[in-house]
């Protein structure tokens, strides 16, 4: 099902950054679709009661956003492996950027390794990771 061609991708290639307003409504929709009902993922007051500055994004949602970003670039069902480290809070109602760069090519499997991360307006990376992406 993958669509990006392996022969057209090289080490050091940057994937076009996806910048968008990461809304609270989207986070609530994700929490509902994932059956997670912790207040920290649904409302500011509930999050503050837990000692947080406000509503936060589930780590799993950050992973999902990264997978979506990679598959927009490479095609559906192209992500074979995704590893993430949650380094900080990803707060909604802010602009976020999802970025990636190709670090390695594997001729045998026609796949690439990609460094990925999510950063905020201040350039802080709240989520970093690596992925293996199969190409056609």
């Amino acid at each position: 099902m993958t669509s990006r061609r392996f022969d057209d991708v090289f080490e050091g290639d940057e994937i076009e950054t996806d910048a968008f307003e990461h809304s609270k409504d989207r986070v609530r929709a994700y929490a509902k679709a994932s059956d997670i009902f912790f207040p920290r993922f649904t409302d500011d007051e509930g999050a503050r009661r837990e000692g947080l500055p406000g509503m936060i994004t589930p780590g799993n949602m950050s992973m999902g956003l990264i997978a979506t970003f990679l598959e927009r670039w490479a095609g559906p069902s192209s992500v074979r492996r995704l590893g993430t480290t949650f380094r900080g809070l990803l707060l909604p109602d802010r602009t976020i950027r999802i970025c990636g760069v190709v670090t390695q090519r594997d001729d045998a499997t026609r796949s690439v390794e990609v460094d990925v991360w999510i950063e905020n307006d201040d350039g802080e990376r709240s989520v970093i990771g690596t992925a293996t992406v199969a190409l056609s």
Partner: protein
Amino acid sequence: MPLDIDPSILGREFDRAEHEPVTAEALISFALALGETHPCYIQAGPELVAHPTYCVRFKGNKFFPDTLPETLRFRMSFDAGKDIALGTPIRPGDVITIVSTLHEVYEKTGRTGSMIFVVVRFTMTNQRRENVAVVDNRFMYKGLAE
């Protein structure tokens, strides 16, 4: 190994959970919440498959084995990250079984001091016993190893 953990508890199944059949509606609402637009993730029909990270929705009956020291089991941990290795795509009607094992316990020293990481592995299969995903859940504990 920190905290005097018995190495024999690593890799041993401590939980098995079978989930209700996956529905097309659940797959679609999950994908839409992530901004997916590709028809294979958001349109009901024979081509519909789960978004690659749908597997992290599934949980076991318990997070940690009873054999894990109480100093870890009953202490608050932080979700430090996950690693997913994907297999056969999940489709509507699939019945997912999760087998949980304690995969790894290790210590790391960072800028804020010593941390202990506990990695719980979920091995997920469908009703045909095909591998769907292996998910390593990494939990971090601060201030235990000092």
